[in-house]
C-alpha cells in the first residue's frame, strides 16, 4: 500500500511540475522538452495554443486523478469502509457531459482563428516551389532562374560512427534555402516520387509533398537566422536523412545573395560549355565520377555498386553498365518511370553525368574501358 501511495504522489508531482519544467527549459533557450516558440507570428500563436491546451489537459488530469486518489485513500476496505450502493445520478451525469462540452467550445475558437490565418496564402510577396524526392529537396524561386537541390551534408563516416558527430549532425545540408525576413513567402510543395513532408518547426509549417499535386503554405520570418527541420513523412530507406535548412537573411543581404546566385548560374553555363568542348582523361573522369556517385547514387545502389537485392538493382555486373551504352546514358538523363530511378538531367551537369557513367562502367570490376565524354551525353540528350 505504501508503494502505491508513493506512486501516486510521484505521478501527481510529475504533472504539477511538468509545466514548470517546460517553462524553465524555454527561458534557458533550450528546446529539448517543449515545442519551440519559433520565429513567426503564426508559430508563436501555435505555441500559445499548445500551452493553453496543455494547461487545460493538466487541469483536467489533476482534478480527475485527484478525486480518484483521494477516493483510493479514503474508501479502502482496510479502513473498514462499508460500500455505498448508489449507481446513478442524472444531475451529475448531465453536468459532466455539458461542462466538458463548454470547455471544448471555448478551446475551438482560438484554434479555428489560428487555423484560418495559417491557411491564408493570399497576397504573398514571393513564391518558392519546394519539391521532395528520395532523399533530397529541390527549391525553385518562381521569380527567377534560381533553383537548386539541397541534400544532407553530414558525412557518412559520422553516421557510421567512424568520425565524431558534429553539432548539427543530420540537420545540415549542402545548399540551404535562403529567404528574406519580413516578407510573406508562399511555398508551393510537391513531390517527384513518394509522399514527403516539408517541416520547419520554427515556422510552424508542416505540409505534405504529394506526387502529382501541389500544396500551399506560407511564412513571414521575423528574425534572421538558421532554421532546421526534417522530412516528416516516411519516404523510404533514407527518410531520416533528408533535413531541411532555411537561412533567413535581411532583405538587403537576401538581395545580394540572389544576385550572386544569378551570376553563378551564368558562370556555370559558361563552364559547362567549356567542359563540353574538352575531352577528359579516364583518371579525371573516374575521380569526379566517384565523387558524384557517392553523393547521388550510393544511397540506393550502395557504395560498392551491388545495390540492395530485391529493392535497388546492382550496377556492378549489370547488362546496362557492361553492354548498353546509350541505354546507360538514357537512364541517367531520364530516369525510369514506375521505379525509384530518378531523372538526373536537371540534378547533374552534362560533365558530371559523363563522369559518373564512366565511373560506373569501370568501377568494381565493370572493366569495360569505356570513356564517356560530356559531348556524347550532350549529343544523346539533344538527339532525342
Amino acid at each position, binding site marked *: 500500500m505504501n508503494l502505491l501511495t508513493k506512486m501516486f504522489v510521484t505521478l501527481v508531482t510529475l504533472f504539477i511540475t511538468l509545466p514548470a519544467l517546460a517553462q524553465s527549459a524555454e527561458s534557458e533557450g533550450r528546446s529539448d522538452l517543449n515545442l519551440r516558440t519559433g520565429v513567426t507570428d503564426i508559430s508563436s500563436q501555435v505555441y500559445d495554443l499548445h500551452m493553453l491546451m496543455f494547461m487545460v489537459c493538466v487541469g483536467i488530469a489533476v482534478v480527475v486523478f485527484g478525486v480518484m486518489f483521494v*477516493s483510493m485513500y479514503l474508501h479502502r476496505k482496510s479502513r473498514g469502509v462499508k460500500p455505498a450502493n448508489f449507481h446513478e445520478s442524472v444531475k451529475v451525469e448531465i453536468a459532466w457531459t455539458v461542462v466538458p462540452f463548454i470547455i471544448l467550445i471555448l478551446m475551438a475558437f482560438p484554434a479555428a482563428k489560428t487555423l484560418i490565418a*495559417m491557411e491564408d496564402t493570399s497576397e504573398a510577396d514571393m513564391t518558392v516551389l519546394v519539391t521532395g524526392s528520395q532523399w533530397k529537396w529541390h527549391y525553385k524561386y518562381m521569380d527567377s532562374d534560381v533553383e537548386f537541390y539541397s541534400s544532407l551534408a553530414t558525412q557518412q563516416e559520422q553516421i557510421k560512427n567512424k568520425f565524431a*558527430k558534429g553539432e548539427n549532425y543530420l540537420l545540415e545540408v549542402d545548399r540551404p534555402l535562403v529567404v528574406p525576413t519580413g516578407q510573406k513567402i508562399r511555398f508551393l510543395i510537391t513531390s517527384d516520387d513518394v509522399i514527403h513532408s516539408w517541416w520547419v518547426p520554427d515556422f510552424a509549417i508542416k505540409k505534405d509533398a504529394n506526387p502529382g499535386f501541389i500544396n500551399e503554405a506560407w511564412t513571414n520570418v521575423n528574425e534572421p537566422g538558421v532554421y532546421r527541420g526534417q522530412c516528416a513523412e516516411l519516404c*523510404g530507406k533514407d527518410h531520416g536523412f533528408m533535413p531541411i535548412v532555411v537561412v533567413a537573411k535581411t532583405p538587403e543581404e537576401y538581395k545580394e545573395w540572389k544576385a550572386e546566385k544569378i551570376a553563378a548560374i551564368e558562370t556555370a553555363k559558361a563552364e559547362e560549355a567549356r567542359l563540353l568542348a574538352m575531352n577528359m582523361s579516364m583518371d579525371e573522369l573516374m575521380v569526379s565520377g566517384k565523387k558524384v556517385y557517392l553523393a547521388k547514387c550510393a544511397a540506393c545502389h550502395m557504395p560498392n555498386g551491388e545495390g540492395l*537485392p530485391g529493392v535497388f538493382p546492382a550496377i556492378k555486373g549489370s547488362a546496362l553498365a557492361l553492354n548498353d551504352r546509350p541505354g546507360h546514358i538514357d537512364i541517367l538523363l531520364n530516369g525510369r*518511370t514506375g521505379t525509384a530511378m530518378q531523372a538526373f538531367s536537371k540534378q547533374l551537369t552534362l560533365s558530371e553525368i559523363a563522369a559518373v557513367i564512366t565511373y560506373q562502367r569501370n568501377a568494381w570490376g565493370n572493366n569495360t574501358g569505356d570513356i564517356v565524354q560530356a559531348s556524347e551525353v550532350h549529343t544523346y540528350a539533344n538527339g532525342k
Partner: protein
Amino acid sequence: MSTATDTIHHDEHDDHHHHIPKGIKRWLFTTNHKDIGSLYLWFSFIMFLTGGAMAMVIRAELFQPGLQIVDPNFFNQMTTVHGLIMVFGAVMPAFTGLANWLIPMMIGAPDMALPRMNNWSFWILPFAFLILLSSLFLEGGGPAFGWTFYAPLSTTYSSDSTALFVFSVHIMGISSIMGAINVIVTIWNMRAPGMTWMKMPMFVWTWLITAFLLIAVMPVLAGVVTMVLTDKYFGTSFFNAAGGGDPVMFQHIFWFFGHPEVYIMILPAFGIISHIIPTFARKPLFGYASMVYATASIALLSFIVWAHHMFTTGMPVAAEMFFMFATMLISVPTGVKVFNWVATMWRGSMTFEIPMLFAIAFVVLFTIGGLSGLMLAITPVDFQYHDTYFVVAHFHYVLVTGAVFSIMAAAYYWLPKWTGVMYDNTLAKWHFWASLVSVNVLFFPMHFVGLAGMPRRIPDYALQFADFNKWISIGGFAFGLSQLIFLALLIKACRKQGEPASDQVWDGAEGLEWEIPSPAPYHTFETPPVIK
C-alpha cells in the same frame, strides 16, 4: 440459478459430454469456445512477444545516435512489422480470445453460435502471420512502408514482398470478420431467458458494438490493400496521379478503416475495466446506461473523424475544421466513461488485487493518452505534433497502457476461473510494478522528444535527442523483460500450480461466469440459466 435442471442434464449426458480429445487433434479440430479462446489468447501472447522483440531491435538501434545495429531498410521493416503484429496479431486476437471465453459464460450460452466458423477464424490466423513473417526473409526484405502502408511508397516504390503482405492482411481481415459475425450472432440469439439488452454485462455490450465496427471497416481495409495490389502489379492507377489517381485518396480510404480500428482496440478494454472496478470497489458500476450510450456514441463518431490523421495532407480549411471539431467531440463520451469509473470507486470499499491495480493504471494512463489525443485534435498545433514522437507517445499510451494493460487486467481477473487456481501473487506483483514503472520510462519521455522535434520512423537522430532516447530504450528493454515474468506466471497457472480458487473467486464479483465452478467445466450452461 442454474441447478434446477440437473435431471434433464442426466439424460443428455452421454450425447453431450463426449470425452475431450487428447493431443494435437483436440486443438486443431476444437469447436469449443473455451479451447478456441485459449488458442487465441496464447497466439496473441506469442505475437506480443514477437512484436516486442522487434520493438527491442528498434530501441537498440535508437539507443544512441548513429547507425549501429541495423541498416535503415531493415529498420523500416521492423517498425512496419512491429506495428502490424501488435495491432492485428496481439491486441485484436487477445480481445477475440477474451470474447470467446467470456461472452458465452456471461450471457448463459453453451457456446458461440457458429462453432465451426469459430475454429476456422482462429486457425487461418497463424498462417497469415507466418506469411507476413516469412516475407522478412525474402530478397529485398519484408514490408518497409510503415503499418499504414501509404501509397505510392507501398506500390511503385515497395519491394516484391508486398504481394505477401497484401495476402496476409486479407487473411487477417477474413478472420476478424468471421470472429465479429460470430460475436453478433451469439449475443443476438443466445442470451439466457431474462437477459434483456440493458441487463447485458458491459464487456458483452462493448464487444457487440466492436463487432459491428469490425464488420463495417474490415472490408474497407480489404479494398484498400487490393487497390495497392493492383496498382503495384496490374497497372491500375488508383493512387497514381499520372494515371488520374490520387495518393491522398489512399489515406482517406485507409483511415476510414483506421480510425474505427483504433476504437476496435479500445472499446472491449472499456468493457473489461467496467467489470473489474465495480468488483474491487464492491459497488455497482456507476451509470451503466450512460456507459452503453457513451460506447455507442464513440463508435458512431469514429466514422466521421478519420481525416484528423491527415491534417498535413493539404485539405481545404473547412474540412480541417470539421474534422477538428468532430474529433474534439469524442472526448465528451470518453470523459463520461472515465468519470463513471471514478464515481464507481467513490465511497466504495476498495481492495487492490492485481486486476484492480492494472485497472487503475489503465484509467490513469489511458486518460493521459486521451488528453494528448485532445491536444492532437487541435489542427494548428497538430501541424507541429504530426508524425513526431509526440504521436508515438500518444498512441502507445492508449494502446499499451490502455488496450494491453486492460488485457492483462482481464487475464489476472478471469485466470482463476479459467484454470481453477489463483495466480502466483508474488510474480504478479513483480509483473505489475515492473511493467508500470518501465512503461512510463519508455513512453513518457517520447512526449518531450516529439515536442522538441524528433520525427517518428527514423533510424538515426540529431544529437539533442540523445539523452531521452537512451532512457526510452532502457525503459523499453525493462518493459520487454517484465513480460517474461508474466509468461512464467501464465505457464504456472496453466499447469494448475497454485491455491485452488473458489467459484466466485473475488468476493465482490457479480455475473453468470462466477456462478459456475472454477475451473469452468468444458461445457457450461447446456441448459440456460434464468435471469431474474
